[in-house]
Protein backbone atom coordinates (compact mmCIF):
# COMPACT_ATOMS: atom_id res chain seq x y z
CA UNK A 1 0.00 0.00 0.00
CA UNK A 2 3.06 2.27 0.10
CA UNK A 3 2.58 5.49 -1.80
CA UNK A 4 -1.22 5.44 -1.75
CA UNK A 5 -1.37 8.30 0.76
CA UNK A 6 0.98 11.09 1.68
CA UNK A 7 3.29 10.33 4.58
CA UNK A 8 1.34 12.37 7.15
CA UNK A 9 -1.93 10.65 6.33
CA UNK A 10 -0.33 7.21 6.36
CA UNK A 11 1.29 7.95 9.75
CA UNK A 12 -2.10 8.90 11.18
CA UNK A 13 -3.76 5.78 9.77
CA UNK A 14 -0.97 3.58 11.12
CA UNK A 15 -1.16 5.15 14.58
CA UNK A 16 -4.95 4.71 14.72
CA UNK A 17 -4.66 1.16 13.44
CA UNK A 18 -2.54 0.22 16.43
CA UNK A 19 -5.40 1.05 18.82
CA UNK A 20 -7.25 -1.93 20.31
CA UNK A 21 -10.29 -2.98 18.30
CA UNK A 22 -9.49 -0.68 15.37
CA UNK A 23 -8.90 -2.54 12.12
CA UNK A 24 -7.30 -1.04 8.98
CA UNK A 25 -10.67 0.01 7.54
CA UNK A 26 -11.79 1.76 10.73
CA UNK A 27 -8.39 3.42 11.00
CA UNK A 28 -8.86 4.89 7.54
CA UNK A 29 -12.37 6.04 8.33
CA UNK A 30 -11.32 7.74 11.59
CA UNK A 31 -8.31 9.35 9.91
CA UNK A 32 -10.45 10.88 7.15
CA UNK A 33 -12.99 12.00 9.71
CA UNK A 34 -10.27 13.79 11.70
CA UNK A 35 -8.99 15.46 8.54
CA UNK A 36 -12.47 16.75 7.74
CA UNK A 37 -13.38 18.22 11.15
CA UNK A 38 -12.28 21.73 12.00
CA UNK A 39 -8.90 22.41 13.58
CA UNK A 40 -10.32 23.20 17.03
CA UNK A 41 -11.96 19.84 17.36
CA UNK A 42 -8.86 17.93 16.25
CA UNK A 43 -6.78 19.99 18.70
CA UNK A 44 -9.20 19.24 21.53
CA UNK A 45 -8.67 15.52 20.95
CA UNK A 46 -4.89 15.90 20.73
CA UNK A 47 -4.80 17.98 23.93
CA UNK A 48 -7.02 15.52 25.80
CA UNK A 49 -4.65 12.70 24.92
CA UNK A 50 -1.56 14.65 25.95
CA UNK A 51 -3.13 15.87 29.20
CA UNK A 52 -4.38 12.44 30.20
CA UNK A 53 -0.99 10.92 29.47
CA UNK A 54 0.68 13.60 31.61
CA UNK A 55 -1.66 13.43 34.57
CA UNK A 56 -3.05 9.93 34.76
CA UNK A 57 -0.97 7.17 36.24
CA UNK A 58 -1.32 3.80 37.86
CA UNK A 59 -1.99 3.73 41.60
CA UNK A 60 1.10 2.40 43.38
CA UNK A 61 -1.01 0.10 45.58
CA UNK A 62 -3.83 -1.29 43.44
CA UNK A 63 -2.79 -0.30 39.87
CA UNK A 64 -6.10 1.38 39.18
CA UNK A 65 -5.95 4.63 37.21
CA UNK A 66 -5.74 7.91 39.09
CA UNK A 67 -4.07 11.29 39.10
CA UNK A 68 -1.99 10.82 42.25
CA UNK A 69 0.35 8.30 43.87
CA UNK A 70 -2.75 6.66 45.35
CA UNK A 71 -6.00 6.34 43.42
CA UNK A 72 -9.24 7.76 44.80
CA UNK A 73 -10.34 4.44 46.20
CA UNK A 74 -7.05 3.64 47.93
CA UNK A 75 -6.97 7.08 49.53
CA UNK A 76 -10.58 6.87 50.78
CA UNK A 77 -10.32 6.22 54.55
CA UNK A 78 -13.94 5.10 54.79
CA UNK A 79 -13.42 1.94 52.78
CA UNK A 80 -13.00 -1.56 54.23
CA UNK A 81 -9.32 -2.57 54.37
CA UNK A 82 -10.00 -6.25 54.96
CA UNK A 83 -11.46 -7.11 51.58
CA UNK A 84 -9.75 -6.90 48.18
CA UNK A 85 -11.64 -7.28 44.93
CA UNK A 86 -9.36 -8.47 42.10
CA UNK A 87 -10.25 -7.31 38.59
CA UNK A 88 -8.59 -7.42 35.18
CA UNK A 89 -8.86 -3.79 34.08
CA UNK A 90 -9.61 -0.32 35.51
CA UNK A 91 -12.92 -0.32 33.64
CA UNK A 92 -13.98 -3.31 35.76
CA UNK A 93 -13.48 -1.17 38.88
CA UNK A 94 -15.90 1.33 37.37
CA UNK A 95 -18.44 -1.43 36.63
CA UNK A 96 -18.32 -2.79 40.18
CA UNK A 97 -18.42 0.69 41.76
CA UNK A 98 -21.63 1.36 39.84
CA UNK A 99 -23.35 -1.48 41.74
CA UNK A 100 -22.72 0.23 45.14
CA UNK A 101 -22.45 -3.30 46.56
CA UNK A 102 -18.76 -3.27 47.39
CA UNK A 103 -16.99 -1.10 49.97
CA UNK A 104 -13.56 -2.75 50.09
CA UNK A 105 -10.36 -2.14 48.12
CA UNK A 106 -9.36 -3.24 44.63
CA UNK A 107 -6.43 -4.80 42.86
CA UNK A 108 -6.16 -4.35 39.10
CA UNK A 109 -4.19 -7.13 37.40
CA UNK A 110 -3.90 -5.23 34.10
CA UNK A 111 -4.90 -8.27 32.08
CA UNK A 112 -5.54 -11.99 32.40
CA UNK A 113 -3.59 -15.20 31.94
CA UNK A 114 -3.89 -16.15 28.29
CA UNK A 115 -2.15 -19.31 27.16
CA UNK A 116 -2.73 -18.73 23.47
CA UNK A 117 -1.44 -15.14 23.52
CA UNK A 118 1.42 -16.04 25.84
CA UNK A 119 0.33 -13.78 28.70
CA UNK A 120 1.63 -15.36 31.90
CA UNK A 121 1.53 -14.42 35.61
CA UNK A 122 4.75 -12.42 35.31
CA UNK A 123 3.17 -9.96 32.89
CA UNK A 124 0.36 -9.23 35.35
CA UNK A 125 0.32 -7.50 38.74
CA UNK A 126 0.11 -10.84 40.53
CA UNK A 127 3.35 -10.60 42.49
CA UNK A 128 2.14 -7.29 43.93
CA UNK A 129 -1.20 -8.88 44.86
CA UNK A 130 0.49 -11.74 46.69
CA UNK A 131 2.60 -9.20 48.59
CA UNK A 132 -0.52 -7.25 49.62
CA UNK A 133 -2.34 -10.35 50.79
CA UNK A 134 0.58 -11.87 52.68
CA UNK A 135 1.36 -8.56 54.37
CA UNK A 136 -1.60 -9.23 56.68
CA UNK A 137 -4.87 -7.51 57.55
CA UNK A 138 -6.74 -9.03 54.58
CA UNK A 139 -9.52 -11.50 55.40
CA UNK A 140 -11.14 -11.95 52.00
CA UNK A 141 -10.07 -11.77 48.37
CA UNK A 142 -12.92 -11.68 45.86
CA UNK A 143 -11.79 -12.72 42.40
CA UNK A 144 -13.80 -10.77 39.83
CA UNK A 145 -12.02 -11.72 36.62
CA UNK A 146 -14.08 -12.03 33.42
CA UNK A 147 -16.27 -15.14 33.10
CA UNK A 148 -14.34 -16.32 30.03
CA UNK A 149 -11.52 -18.81 29.54
CA UNK A 150 -8.75 -16.31 30.30
CA UNK A 151 -10.54 -14.95 33.36
CA UNK A 152 -11.10 -18.47 34.65
CA UNK A 153 -7.49 -19.51 34.09
CA UNK A 154 -6.49 -16.42 36.08
CA UNK A 155 -8.92 -17.24 38.90
CA UNK A 156 -7.66 -20.83 39.08
CA UNK A 157 -4.08 -19.63 39.20
CA UNK A 158 -4.83 -17.01 41.85
CA UNK A 159 -6.66 -19.46 44.08
CA UNK A 160 -3.51 -21.58 44.03
CA UNK A 161 -0.96 -18.87 44.77
CA UNK A 162 -3.10 -16.94 47.28
CA UNK A 163 -3.39 -19.86 49.66
CA UNK A 164 -2.73 -17.78 52.80
CA UNK A 165 -4.03 -18.92 56.24
CA UNK A 166 -6.91 -16.78 57.48
CA UNK A 167 -7.77 -15.44 54.01
CA UNK A 168 -10.98 -16.52 52.30
CA UNK A 169 -10.81 -16.60 48.51
CA UNK A 170 -14.14 -16.18 46.79
CA UNK A 171 -15.11 -16.02 43.15
CA UNK A 172 -17.84 -13.96 41.59
CA UNK A 173 -20.70 -16.40 41.03
CA UNK A 174 -21.59 -16.79 37.39
CA UNK A 175 -25.26 -17.38 36.87
CA UNK A 176 -27.90 -16.86 34.26
CA UNK A 177 -28.14 -13.48 32.67
CA UNK A 178 -31.24 -11.68 33.87
CA UNK A 179 -33.75 -11.33 31.07
CA UNK A 180 -32.73 -14.45 29.18
CA UNK A 181 -34.48 -17.77 28.55
CA UNK A 182 -33.21 -20.88 30.34
CA UNK A 183 -33.18 -22.97 27.17
CA UNK A 184 -30.58 -20.71 25.58
CA UNK A 185 -28.08 -21.04 28.41
CA UNK A 186 -24.95 -23.00 27.57
CA UNK A 187 -23.83 -25.99 29.69
CA UNK A 188 -21.19 -24.07 31.58
CA UNK A 189 -23.44 -21.19 32.56
CA UNK A 190 -26.33 -23.44 33.52
CA UNK A 191 -24.03 -25.75 35.51
CA UNK A 192 -22.55 -22.80 37.41
CA UNK A 193 -25.99 -21.38 38.08
CA UNK A 194 -27.08 -24.71 39.58
CA UNK A 195 -23.93 -24.87 41.66
CA UNK A 196 -24.47 -21.37 43.02
CA UNK A 197 -28.23 -21.74 43.65
CA UNK A 198 -29.82 -19.97 46.61
CA UNK A 199 -32.28 -21.42 49.10
CA UNK A 200 -35.48 -19.39 49.00
CA UNK A 201 -37.47 -21.31 51.62
CA UNK A 202 -36.82 -23.93 54.35
CA UNK A 203 -33.59 -24.39 56.29
Amino acid at each position, binding site marked *: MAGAYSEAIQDLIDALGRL*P*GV*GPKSAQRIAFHLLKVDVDEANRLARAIVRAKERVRFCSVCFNLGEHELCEICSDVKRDDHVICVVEEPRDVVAIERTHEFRGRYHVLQGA*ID*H*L*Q*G*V*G*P*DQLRIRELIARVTAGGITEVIICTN*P*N*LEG*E*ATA*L*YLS*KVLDVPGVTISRLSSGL*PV*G*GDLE*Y*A*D*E*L*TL*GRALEGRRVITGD
Partner: protein
Amino acid sequence: MSLYRDAAVVLRTYKLGEADRITVLLTRTAGKVRAVAKGVRKTRSKFGSRLEPGSYIDAQLHEGKGELDIVTQAESVEFFPQIRTDLARLSRASALLEAVDQLTLDREPNRRLFEMLVGGLRIIDEQNPPLVIGAFFLKLLAAEGVAPVLDGCIECQSDEGPFVWAVDAGGVRCRACGSGRAVSDDALSVSRAVLGGGLRTALELPDSPVVHEVEDFAARSLEAHLERRLRSLHLLTDS
Protein backbone atom coordinates in the same frame (compact mmCIF):
# COMPACT_ATOMS: atom_id res chain seq x y z
CA MET B 1 -24.07 -15.45 0.87
CA SER B 2 -24.70 -19.09 1.61
CA LEU B 3 -25.25 -20.87 4.87
CA TYR B 4 -23.41 -24.00 5.92
CA ARG B 5 -23.16 -26.28 8.91
CA ASP B 6 -20.13 -28.07 10.28
CA ALA B 7 -18.78 -29.60 13.46
CA ALA B 8 -15.95 -27.46 14.83
CA VAL B 9 -13.47 -27.01 17.65
CA VAL B 10 -12.67 -23.42 18.61
CA LEU B 11 -8.89 -23.05 18.37
CA ARG B 12 -8.61 -19.47 19.52
CA THR B 13 -10.35 -16.12 19.45
CA TYR B 14 -9.41 -12.50 18.90
CA LYS B 15 -11.32 -9.49 20.19
CA LEU B 16 -12.97 -7.47 17.48
CA GLY B 17 -14.45 -4.03 18.03
CA GLU B 18 -16.63 -3.42 21.07
CA ALA B 19 -18.30 -6.75 21.70
CA ASP B 20 -17.40 -9.14 18.87
CA ARG B 21 -14.77 -11.77 18.43
CA ILE B 22 -13.06 -13.42 15.52
CA THR B 23 -13.11 -17.15 16.21
CA VAL B 24 -10.64 -19.51 14.60
CA LEU B 25 -12.45 -22.81 14.09
CA LEU B 26 -11.10 -26.17 13.05
CA THR B 27 -14.09 -27.63 11.25
CA ARG B 28 -14.54 -31.28 10.42
CA THR B 29 -15.08 -30.88 6.69
CA ALA B 30 -13.94 -27.39 5.68
CA GLY B 31 -10.64 -27.24 7.60
CA LYS B 32 -9.62 -24.12 9.52
CA VAL B 33 -12.11 -21.29 9.16
CA ARG B 34 -12.11 -17.78 10.61
CA ALA B 35 -15.52 -16.47 11.54
CA VAL B 36 -16.90 -13.42 13.31
CA ALA B 37 -19.10 -14.04 16.34
CA LYS B 38 -21.18 -10.93 16.82
CA GLY B 39 -21.92 -9.73 20.34
CA VAL B 40 -20.21 -12.74 21.89
CA ARG B 41 -18.51 -10.66 24.59
CA LYS B 42 -21.80 -9.35 25.92
CA THR B 43 -22.89 -11.21 29.05
CA ARG B 44 -26.28 -11.84 27.46
CA SER B 45 -24.89 -13.31 24.25
CA LYS B 46 -26.78 -16.34 23.00
CA PHE B 47 -23.43 -18.04 22.40
CA GLY B 48 -22.54 -18.10 26.10
CA SER B 49 -19.28 -19.97 26.58
CA ARG B 50 -19.71 -22.05 23.44
CA LEU B 51 -17.31 -20.03 21.34
CA GLU B 52 -14.39 -20.09 23.73
CA PRO B 53 -11.17 -21.96 22.92
CA GLY B 54 -11.56 -25.72 23.35
CA SER B 55 -15.32 -25.80 22.77
CA TYR B 56 -16.55 -28.59 20.50
CA ILE B 57 -19.61 -27.31 18.70
CA ASP B 58 -22.05 -27.83 15.90
CA ALA B 59 -21.79 -24.50 14.13
CA GLN B 60 -23.95 -22.79 11.56
CA LEU B 61 -22.01 -20.29 9.51
CA HIS B 62 -22.67 -17.70 6.85
CA GLU B 63 -20.09 -17.57 4.12
CA GLY B 64 -18.60 -14.09 4.12
CA LYS B 65 -17.48 -12.05 1.18
CA GLY B 66 -13.84 -11.95 2.27
CA GLU B 67 -11.86 -14.36 4.37
CA LEU B 68 -14.16 -14.04 7.37
CA ASP B 69 -17.36 -16.05 7.72
CA ILE B 70 -20.02 -15.30 10.34
CA VAL B 71 -21.11 -17.64 13.10
CA THR B 72 -24.89 -17.58 13.26
CA GLN B 73 -25.51 -20.51 15.62
CA ALA B 74 -23.48 -22.73 17.91
CA GLU B 75 -24.69 -25.78 19.79
CA SER B 76 -22.48 -27.80 22.08
CA VAL B 77 -21.62 -31.27 20.71
CA GLU B 78 -19.54 -32.38 23.65
CA PHE B 79 -18.76 -30.33 26.73
CA PHE B 80 -15.41 -30.72 28.50
CA PRO B 81 -16.12 -29.47 32.03
CA GLN B 82 -12.82 -30.40 33.65
CA ILE B 83 -10.76 -28.46 31.12
CA ARG B 84 -12.55 -25.37 32.42
CA THR B 85 -11.98 -26.02 36.11
CA ASP B 86 -8.49 -27.53 36.33
CA LEU B 87 -5.54 -25.35 35.44
CA ALA B 88 -3.26 -28.28 34.53
CA ARG B 89 -5.86 -29.59 32.08
CA LEU B 90 -6.50 -26.12 30.71
CA SER B 91 -2.78 -25.61 30.05
CA ARG B 92 -2.54 -28.93 28.23
CA ALA B 93 -5.68 -28.34 26.19
CA SER B 94 -4.30 -24.92 25.22
CA ALA B 95 -1.06 -26.55 24.05
CA LEU B 96 -3.06 -28.89 21.77
CA LEU B 97 -5.12 -26.02 20.36
CA GLU B 98 -2.06 -23.86 19.78
CA ALA B 99 -0.15 -26.69 18.06
CA VAL B 100 -3.07 -27.49 15.75
CA ASP B 101 -3.61 -23.81 14.95
CA GLN B 102 0.05 -23.41 14.05
CA LEU B 103 0.11 -26.52 11.89
CA THR B 104 -2.93 -25.73 9.76
CA LEU B 105 -3.60 -23.40 6.87
CA ASP B 106 -7.01 -21.83 6.32
CA ARG B 107 -9.60 -23.89 4.44
CA GLU B 108 -7.51 -27.00 3.94
CA PRO B 109 -9.76 -29.91 4.90
CA ASN B 110 -8.11 -32.35 7.30
CA ARG B 111 -10.66 -34.64 8.84
CA ARG B 112 -8.08 -36.84 10.53
CA LEU B 113 -6.56 -33.90 12.38
CA PHE B 114 -10.02 -32.84 13.51
CA GLU B 115 -10.72 -36.29 14.96
CA MET B 116 -7.29 -36.32 16.61
CA LEU B 117 -7.92 -32.98 18.27
CA VAL B 118 -11.35 -33.97 19.57
CA GLY B 119 -9.85 -37.23 20.87
CA GLY B 120 -7.00 -35.37 22.55
CA LEU B 121 -9.33 -32.89 24.27
CA ARG B 122 -11.59 -35.73 25.40
CA ILE B 123 -8.68 -37.64 26.94
CA ILE B 124 -7.41 -34.53 28.73
CA ASP B 125 -10.89 -33.86 30.09
CA GLU B 126 -11.48 -37.44 31.24
CA GLN B 127 -8.22 -38.98 32.47
CA ASN B 128 -5.59 -36.36 31.74
CA PRO B 129 -2.84 -39.00 31.50
CA PRO B 130 0.75 -37.76 32.07
CA LEU B 131 1.92 -38.71 28.56
CA VAL B 132 -0.97 -37.05 26.69
CA ILE B 133 1.02 -34.06 25.37
CA GLY B 134 4.06 -36.13 24.44
CA ALA B 135 1.93 -38.72 22.65
CA PHE B 136 -0.25 -36.14 20.88
CA PHE B 137 2.75 -34.20 19.60
CA LEU B 138 4.49 -37.34 18.33
CA LYS B 139 1.27 -38.32 16.53
CA LEU B 140 0.99 -34.81 15.08
CA LEU B 141 4.52 -35.05 13.70
CA ALA B 142 3.70 -38.43 12.18
CA ALA B 143 0.48 -37.06 10.65
CA GLU B 144 2.55 -34.23 9.16
CA GLY B 145 4.79 -36.81 7.53
CA VAL B 146 7.78 -35.95 9.73
CA ALA B 147 7.63 -38.72 12.30
CA PRO B 148 10.91 -38.87 14.26
CA VAL B 149 13.23 -41.68 13.15
CA LEU B 150 13.65 -43.86 16.24
CA ASP B 151 14.58 -47.33 15.05
CA GLY B 152 18.26 -46.48 14.70
CA CYS B 153 20.81 -43.68 14.33
CA ILE B 154 19.48 -41.14 11.85
CA GLU B 155 22.97 -40.61 10.39
CA CYS B 156 24.52 -44.08 10.13
CA GLN B 157 21.45 -46.30 10.64
CA SER B 158 23.24 -48.23 13.38
CA ASP B 159 20.70 -49.70 15.76
CA GLU B 160 23.24 -50.00 18.51
CA GLY B 161 22.74 -47.61 21.39
CA PRO B 162 23.25 -45.70 23.52
CA PHE B 163 21.63 -42.87 21.59
CA VAL B 164 21.26 -39.13 22.05
CA TRP B 165 18.15 -37.10 21.07
CA ALA B 166 18.64 -35.31 17.76
CA VAL B 167 15.80 -32.76 17.58
CA ASP B 168 17.58 -30.89 14.77
CA ALA B 169 17.66 -33.99 12.55
CA GLY B 170 14.33 -35.48 13.60
CA GLY B 171 15.27 -38.61 15.51
CA VAL B 172 18.11 -40.10 17.51
CA ARG B 173 21.86 -40.36 16.87
CA CYS B 174 24.38 -42.89 18.07
CA ARG B 175 27.23 -41.59 20.23
CA ALA B 176 29.68 -41.99 17.35
CA CYS B 177 27.61 -39.63 15.16
CA GLY B 178 26.98 -36.84 17.64
CA SER B 179 26.50 -35.65 21.17
CA GLY B 180 23.46 -34.36 23.03
CA ARG B 181 20.93 -35.26 25.67
CA ALA B 182 21.09 -39.01 26.37
CA VAL B 183 18.09 -41.15 25.39
CA SER B 184 16.91 -43.53 28.10
CA ASP B 185 15.90 -47.03 26.97
CA ASP B 186 12.42 -46.62 28.44
CA ALA B 187 11.81 -43.28 26.72
CA LEU B 188 12.89 -44.76 23.41
CA SER B 189 10.56 -47.75 23.70
CA VAL B 190 7.66 -45.58 24.89
CA SER B 191 8.13 -43.21 21.92
CA ARG B 192 8.32 -46.14 19.53
CA ALA B 193 5.16 -47.58 21.07
CA VAL B 194 3.28 -44.29 20.61
CA LEU B 195 4.26 -44.15 16.93
CA GLY B 196 3.60 -47.87 16.52
CA GLY B 197 0.38 -49.42 17.68
CA GLY B 198 0.85 -48.99 21.43
CA LEU B 199 -0.71 -45.60 22.11
CA ARG B 200 -3.36 -46.87 24.50
CA THR B 201 -0.89 -48.67 26.77
CA ALA B 202 1.55 -45.76 26.63
CA LEU B 203 -1.18 -43.40 27.87
CA GLU B 204 -1.63 -45.59 30.93
CA LEU B 205 1.92 -44.90 32.14
CA PRO B 206 2.14 -43.14 35.50
CA ASP B 207 3.97 -39.83 35.82
CA SER B 208 7.73 -40.42 35.70
CA PRO B 209 11.00 -38.94 34.38
CA VAL B 210 10.51 -41.12 31.28
CA VAL B 211 7.18 -39.43 30.51
CA HIS B 212 8.86 -36.02 30.85
CA GLU B 213 11.74 -37.10 28.63
CA VAL B 214 9.31 -38.14 25.87
CA GLU B 215 7.24 -34.98 26.25
CA ASP B 216 10.33 -32.80 26.14
CA PHE B 217 11.59 -34.47 22.97
CA ALA B 218 8.17 -34.41 21.29
CA ALA B 219 7.60 -30.75 22.17
CA ARG B 220 11.05 -29.65 21.03
CA SER B 221 10.65 -31.63 17.81
CA LEU B 222 7.28 -30.05 17.11
CA GLU B 223 8.64 -26.58 17.90
CA ALA B 224 11.54 -27.24 15.52
CA HIS B 225 9.07 -28.28 12.82
CA LEU B 226 6.93 -25.18 13.40
CA GLU B 227 10.01 -22.98 13.73
CA ARG B 228 8.50 -21.30 16.77
CA ARG B 229 7.91 -21.91 20.45
CA LEU B 230 4.57 -23.11 21.72
CA ARG B 231 3.58 -20.43 24.21
CA SER B 232 0.98 -22.47 26.08
CA LEU B 233 3.48 -25.13 26.95
CA HIS B 234 5.87 -22.86 28.81
CA LEU B 235 3.51 -20.28 30.25
CA LEU B 236 2.95 -21.69 33.72
CA THR B 237 6.06 -23.86 33.93
CA ASP B 238 8.80 -21.33 33.17
CA SER B 239 7.93 -19.00 36.00
